[in-house]
């Protein structure tokens, strides 16, 4: 797999708190191929955002390796080259807080163009107008302030800002979870179009599996800091293996009978997500797992690959690879 643009190997990020060590990301391995969208799904506290922030260099990884285009980038943002920062961008969940309310859109968009010296000063406004056009906003938007535009438009601005440095890889951290569905649809379609047009690679983080079905080429599921299953989207939804994946899929409220048929047989969701400070021994999911066997509360399962490209971390499948 030489065309992997980003590879994470046994990535760990631990936080030391008064109550103990929080293993927010605990041995996460995955690869993202060029021009694909890897969907990272998980419930709150599963460590999705920690992985994203570690890739961005906002956090320094505790251990493990991150390779970007074959080079090691396992270091904080301050120690990364400008060139690298230009190539990796992020769109945050809440555009209300990721855009400075005291600056105009023009000032917001001007910053990356200036820092990375993308175009000379005289041609900046022209470039900003071009970027706004890419996200289907009129050029006179640059004179507005974030507070005077709608939530969906703010997120468009955040996307345009990420595109300003002409990146090849963008982390999308729940870009539409703060928005209504009618606005979400527009943004998702825009992201898909931009990806084709500009050959972008996405790491798309969300908790919405139905959205993932329509957006991702491959899906990875996280639970308590570990990835429990990775597969191509079609395979993931037609042949989910991990009991947690099945539980998630059967919990989704859907809007048509046709979708109802695609859900695995009802697995009654039980138990709470344990606190990440106090992860249960063995497989971290064993307390909630309907298919638990003896070994589960003692030994942490290893990643196995029952089918090519379909990895799962569960004792039930350890014999089958």
């Amino acid at each position, binding site marked *: 797999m030489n065309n992997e643009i980003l590879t994470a190997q046994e990535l760990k990020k631990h936080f030391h708190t008064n109550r103990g060590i929080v293993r927010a990301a605990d041995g996460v391995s995955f690869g993202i191929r060029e021009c694909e969208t890897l969907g990272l799904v998980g*419930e*709150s506290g599963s460590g999705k955002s920690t992985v994203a922030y570690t890739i961005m260099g906002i956090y320094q990884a505790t251990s493990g390796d991150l390779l970007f285009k074959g080079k090691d980038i396992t270091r904080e943002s301050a120690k990364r080259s400008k060139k690298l920062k230009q190539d990796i961008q992020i769109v945050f969940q809440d555009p209300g807080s990721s855009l400075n309310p005291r600056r105009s859109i023009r000032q917001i968009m001007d910053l990356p163009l200036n820092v990375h010296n993308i175009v000379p000063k005289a041609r900046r406004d022209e470039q900003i107008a071009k970027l706004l056009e890419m996200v289907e906003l009129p050029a006179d938007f640059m004179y507005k302030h974030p507070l005077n535009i709608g939530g969906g438009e703010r997120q468009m601005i955040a996307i345009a800002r990420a595109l300003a440095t002409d990146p090849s890889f963008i982390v999308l951290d729940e870009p539409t979870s703060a928005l209504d569905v009618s*606005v*979400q*649809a527009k943004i998702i379609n825009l992201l898909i179009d931009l990806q084709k047009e500009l050959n972008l690679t996405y790491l798309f983080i969300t908790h919405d599996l139905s959205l993932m*079905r329509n957006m991702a080429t491959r899906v990875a599921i996280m639970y308590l800091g570990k990835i429990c299953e990775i597969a191509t989207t079609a395979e993931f939804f037609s042949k989910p293996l991990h009991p947690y994946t099945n539980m998630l899929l059967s919990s989704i*409220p859907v809007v048509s009978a046709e979708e109802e048929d*695609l859900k695995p047989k009802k697995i*009654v969701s039980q138990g709470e997500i344990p606190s990440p400070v106090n992860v249960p021994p063995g497989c971290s999911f064993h307390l909630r797992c309907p298919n638990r066997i003896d070994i589960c509360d003692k030994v942490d399962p290893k990643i196995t690959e029952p089918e090519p490209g379909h990895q799962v971390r569960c004792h039930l499948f350890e014999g089958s690879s």
Partner: protein
Amino acid sequence: MGKRLLEIKNLQVNFDVYGGSLKVLNGVHLTMEEGEKVGLVGETGCGKTTTAKSVLKILPMPPGKVMGGEILFRDADILKMNDNEMRQIHAHEISMIFQDPTAALNPVFTIGQQLMEAIKYSSDNSLSRKEIKEQAVGALRDVSLPDPERILENYPIQLSGGMRQRICIAMALATRSTLLIADEPTTSLDVTIQDQVLRLLGALVREKDTSTILITHSLGVVREWTERVYVMYAGSMVETAGTEELFKNPLHPYTQGLMAAVPKLTGKGIASGIEGRIPDYLDPPPGCRFHPRCPRAFDTCKKEKPPYFDADAGHQVACFLYKD
């Protein structure tokens, strides 16, 4: 057909703000019978919560102001009730579950203090302390919380989000109200926990025969949970039908757009959504409030507010396309 429990007729509510009046509710209609489970769907800012708070009469007034309409609860107009009568309604008849359980529970009192207060209030002080405690423990057991005696001593911060929402449900149901208004009860929860909480709520309201209004923006939740749906847009009720009928045959262009925009598990891509955004309530568009975003709008829509047209038995839609 059961007895009519609640009827909201043409409710209009404004909020006075600096620079004018926000015309938030502009003709809300809702009818429900005893024992019915009704869903109220719409996007952010369409007035779902304002409607719910009007029914409970807990809207801050001012700035809120009821401009017209009636809210009939068992044929008595809630809007005309005095404080004493309202206290009776709160104690025995209507209770509410709020979206954010963390904000709904007081952080400086224990769960027990808060829950027992609610039970004491709804029993008109007729119970002994021991009986109140017994009921509190029973209420927590009803919502499948382990070790209820210990939880009564806990503060909200010691519990997880899903547990806190279950406490709120326990509190709302412990008063044995006739009508429960659940305002986005699972929006702040994860999908597997949402599933648990909704199943639990469903079982409890069935068991106690509580009529329920479920307010949500999630069409999927409404489909799995309710018998009748009301769709709201910009302060008006635009469509209502039996749940199955509405999902099979949505008529209003807004409902259709909304349904198409929901990402589906079948993975056939996402429709383009609805152009534009919710109107400015200071100066809402005349006529049908949806017309600036409506792909099928024509002249009449810009001038007149559409009345309800009967499309089918029990299926009403406020749109001139169905006038015949």
